[in-house]
């Protein structure tokens, strides 16, 4: 194959391979110096990396600290940075005003999503495997115990920080106009957080979780209009086999169907809905005048003009 190669250099190297060592050394030196010259020539042709088409295709705006407009543009044109406002009031980020609780809650959600996905690699939502997988995670999986405890403690903390965030919002009066809608979105997020906590309770399939879910879903029996032991339930023809509890458990007892349903709501259903509500929540914070402090007066006047048009 090599003899058929049309490149004369290649052929020469192969045919004269058994020459004296001195001649070979010189040829290598010639080769390397030629390579070096070519590399220098190529390097000269290279532009500043920030001037290349590749760079510009990713970063549209150069990072120039001297120009405030440019700094804003750099933030707005980046998918990760644009989640934050380009400018904020210095006073609005003071910890006595915010406690940082909303941010910490979101951070915990990120931690829970990450550790939760890792836990899914070792967990089977079936009656035979579930508790065995928990023991396996605790005792055999590398860093499994750490992983599980991170998920557990982050979950506890997220419930606590959500309440504290809500408490702060009440103290600073941030539920008032024009932030009423965002308060309601926040209440929905609180409910979703608690539901995530509750559905995760059953997944280890241990005695604690099993009885907690038994008790929790037995409360659903007494739901007005929806539970078979609640007000108007029997009159509407509800039994233990067609009421809201049956729909939640996928049966009349906490069994394999309940475990699977709990798993799906915990890992897919509720996080998906919560993520959408979170996006709205964060977006509205900026539209309603930032993370803390008084709301802008300009919004007030805009509302009046809308009212006049009617």
């Amino acid at each position, binding site marked *: 194959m090599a003899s058929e190669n049309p490149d004369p250099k290649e052929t020469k190297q192969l045919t004269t391979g058994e020459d004296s060592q001195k001649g070979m050394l010189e040829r290598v030196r010639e080769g390397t110096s030629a390579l070096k010259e070519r590399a220098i020539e190529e390097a000269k042709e290279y532009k500043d990396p920030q001037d290349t088409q590749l760079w510009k295709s990713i970063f549209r705006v150069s990072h120039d600290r001297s120009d405030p407009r440019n700094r804003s543009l750099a933030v707005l044109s980046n998918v990760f940075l644009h989640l934050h406002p380009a400018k904020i009031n210095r006073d609005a980020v003071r910890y006595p005003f915010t406690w940082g609780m909303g941010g910490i809650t979101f951070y915990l959600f990120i931690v829970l999503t990450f550790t939760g996905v890792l836990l899914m690699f070792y967990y089977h939502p079936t009656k035979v495997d579930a508790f065995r997988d928990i023991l396996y995670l605790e005792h055999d999986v590398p860093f499994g115990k750490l992983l599980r405890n991170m998920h557990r403690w982050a979950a506890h903390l997220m419930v606590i920080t959500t309440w504290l965030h809500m408490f702060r919002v009440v103290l600073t009066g941030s539920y008032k106009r024009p932030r009423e809608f965002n308060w309601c979105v926040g209440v929905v997020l609180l409910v979703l957080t608690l539901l995530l906590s509750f559905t995760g309770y059953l997944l280890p399939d241990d005695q604690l979780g099993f*009885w907690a879910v*038994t*008790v929790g879903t*037995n*409360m659903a029996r007494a739901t007005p209009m929806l539970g078979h032991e609640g007000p108007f339930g029997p009159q509407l023809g509800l039994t233990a*086999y*067609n009421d809201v509890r*049956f*729909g*939640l458990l*996928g*049966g*009349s*007892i906490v*069994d394999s*169907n309940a475990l699977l349903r709990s798993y799906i709501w915990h890992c897919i259903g509720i996080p998906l809905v919560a993520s959408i509500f979170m996006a709205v929540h964060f977006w509205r914070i900026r539209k309603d005048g930032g993370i803390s402090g008084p709301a802008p007066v300009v919004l007030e006047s805009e509302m009046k003009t809308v009212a006049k048009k009617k």
Partner: protein
Amino acid sequence: MFVRFFLPRSILEPSSVFRIGPPSDYALGVDTKWQQQYRIWVTKTSDRLFVIYARCTHLGCTPDWKASENKFKCPCHGSGYDSEGINFEGPAPRPMDRAKVTLDAEGQVLVDTGKLFEWPKGEVGHFNDPDAYIPL
């Protein structure tokens, strides 16, 4: 349609009708041998035999039979019942329900936990209804 999807047509749960042998198999007092399998206790008194459905009337946990204290105690929230399933402490609102019992042709006790007899607080109890107990 979306709601209907979440209500399965058939479920693989243990049958609610089963046989537990003749009344003569049981001594006076509480027998816990079917608790694990059928979630029931068989109680025999001087004049009748009845089957208590082992579900706390507070929020549905399974109480434990404490032979030394002669009572049922729920581990979840502490409801207490006497040997006949009558509540006397804790948050339970009424005595534990009793399952339908009949004698089949062989003289065995046939239990149906699908039909439960209640004694709601302040209302007429159904513990003396036909099929709520087997007279001895």
